[in-house]
């Protein structure tokens, strides 16, 4: 009627990200001896990132970088000591929120690293896969469970008769497929993949990664992927965060981080992942103890380009491009 006098529609605002992590911190208190004073250990020290719906955010870093702690906080195994976590509008702060947890159990499921520890050896595969259903969304009868288990097994590329087997009869790759089938039982929107292939043979890794990509396309899943292996993250992720001592060194789109790496640590990781085209040496040494983090830039003791400023002043994440930020005083061009 009077549509013609309405102002032209504003450009649709970008949908809010599915997962928003801001200033996330996890500090443990550690006592090194009976009489020693308890010391704070910052496993995660103020990490912020967002995952858009349908995307894959890849967290990469060495062991001890805090990536698994972040995964455990997002999946709900631990509660952060600071910062906030927002999943599809639900807020998970430092305080317990049982209703939110119940919602999270259906919205998000984890896939863990060790496919041997993830499956109860006393249960049949069918019961392992339908356990979340029996807890959250009971079906009418055993036939319905069997049908759903069969469907899930088919989705992960396993024959239906696996439902009657015990985990002991399965290989590592088959077990990880079962773990994925279980994670999908409640039709979650978000999967937290904590080193999903690092315990598998190299030949199996690619199959499982392809399966995960395939499932993401078919089921419109969003992934938070944790890996120490940059090649895995490069294959899977749409955005990448490079973690070191509980902080981001570099953060951005896959293309920005992999094709225009600005942080010396990112460059070292890339060099280590592709030794054939390495033109700079991988960094030496080990990640420092989070109990005794270095002054200034966390990476300076191992950085080939460290200068006096790096030892004194901690760099903040600053933008290099539209979706590319780096925490370095002297980023590579």
């Amino acid at each position: 009627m009077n549509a013609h006098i309405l102002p032209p529609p504003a450009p649709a605002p970008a949908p809010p990200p599915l997962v928003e992590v801001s200033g996330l911190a996890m500090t443990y208190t550690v006592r090194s001896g009976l009489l020693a004073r308890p010391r704070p250990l910052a496993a995660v020290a103020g990490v912020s990132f967002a995952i858009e719906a349908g995307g894959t955010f890849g967290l990469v870093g060495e062991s001890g970088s805090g990536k698994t702690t972040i995964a455990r906080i997002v999946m709900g195994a631990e509660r952060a000591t600071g910062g906030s976590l927002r999943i599809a509008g639900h807020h998970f702060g430092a305080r317990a929120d049982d209703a939110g947890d119940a919602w999270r159990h259906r919205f998000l499921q984890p896939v863990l690293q060790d496919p041997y520890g993830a499956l109860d050896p006393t249960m049949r595969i069918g019961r392992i896969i339908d356990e979340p259903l029996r807890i959250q969304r009971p079906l009418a009868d055993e036939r319905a469970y069997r049908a759903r288990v069969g469907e899930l097994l088919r989705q992960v590329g396993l024959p239906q008769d696996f439902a009657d087997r015990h985990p002991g009869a399965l290989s590592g790759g088959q077990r990880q497929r079962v773990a994925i089938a279980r994670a999908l039982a409640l039709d979650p929107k978000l999967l937290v993949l904590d080193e999903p292939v690092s315990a598998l043979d190299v030949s199996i890794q690619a199959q499982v990664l392809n399966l995960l990509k395939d499932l993401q396309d078919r089921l419109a899943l969003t992934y938070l992927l944790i890996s120490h292996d940059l090649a895995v993250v490069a294959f899977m992720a749409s955005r990448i965060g490079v973690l070191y001592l509980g902080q981001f060194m570099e953060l951005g789109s896959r293309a920005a981080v992999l094709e225009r790496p600005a942080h010396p640590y990112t460059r070292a990781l890339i060099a280590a992942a592709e030794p054939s085209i390495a033109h700079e040496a991988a960094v030496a040494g080990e990640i420092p103890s989070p109990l005794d983090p270095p002054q200034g830039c966390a990476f300076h003791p191992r950085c080939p380009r460290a200068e006096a400023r790096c030892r004194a002043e901690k760099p903040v994440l600053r933008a290099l491009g539209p979706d590319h930020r780096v925490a370095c005083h002297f980023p590579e061009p």
Partner: protein
Amino acid sequence: MAADLARAITASPAVRPRRSLRHLARRIGFLGAVATLVLIAGAALLAPHVAPYDPNAINLGHALKAPSAVHWFGTDQLGRDVLSRVIHGGRMSLLIALCVVTLAGIGGTLAGLVAGYRGGLVDDVVMRLAEIQYALPPVILALVMVGVLGPSTVNIILVITLANWARFARVIRAEAISLRHRDFVLLARLSGASSWRIVLTHILPNVKPTLLVLLTLDIGLIIILEATLSFLGLGIQPPDPSWGTMIAEGRAYLERAWWTSLLPGAALLATVLAANILADGFGRRGAGGPGGA
């Protein structure tokens, strides 16, 4: 390479026969233990029908007769048939052992599961109670309790249960603690499973092999403890037969009539040994031996 070589060596014909011979001996031992227990339990269950005489029938004219075709195990100082008394005594011993194993097994396992899975204050309370029980010698505990409550079958069962629950609680607690950190428990928790659900569907099935070993091992220990108490006059009261009282009563005639003490002792030994061999067999199975669970 090395693994293939090792496999080739263990599979070589020089080694295999000895391994299978040991395996065969173990199997025969296990089956023998099962047969012994079935025989003793069957005799105990059907005692009134299989015992040749009334176990309490006194015949002073036939006192302390050596084993013969008439009295297979001989007679005691009152002329009672020892075989009949061994059979009826076993009925009592096994009844008490079953009651105690059920009560202490359920109670101790429950306490251990809750203490191990929950931890914290519950764990502290349960473990302190278990330590108090460990510090108290069962015979002293029995002396006090029977002294206060008087000797009766129910009181004996109570005393032995009190003396035995803590072993279950401690072992099961240790297993529950290691199990609660396993990934499949975390995944169940992140699917919204309640603590009870996790304990019943994940922890309990995983401690089952250990529990089976504990239960069978405990049967032997309970029978010995009951015999000890009866031997000291704190258990089954005369004239009712029990292996412990029979051994105690026969002691005075040991030089003239060995059968009055030794044959009930042999029955005790056979039962306890069979229970232990059974427990050992279950343990091997649980540890992933042939035919493992």
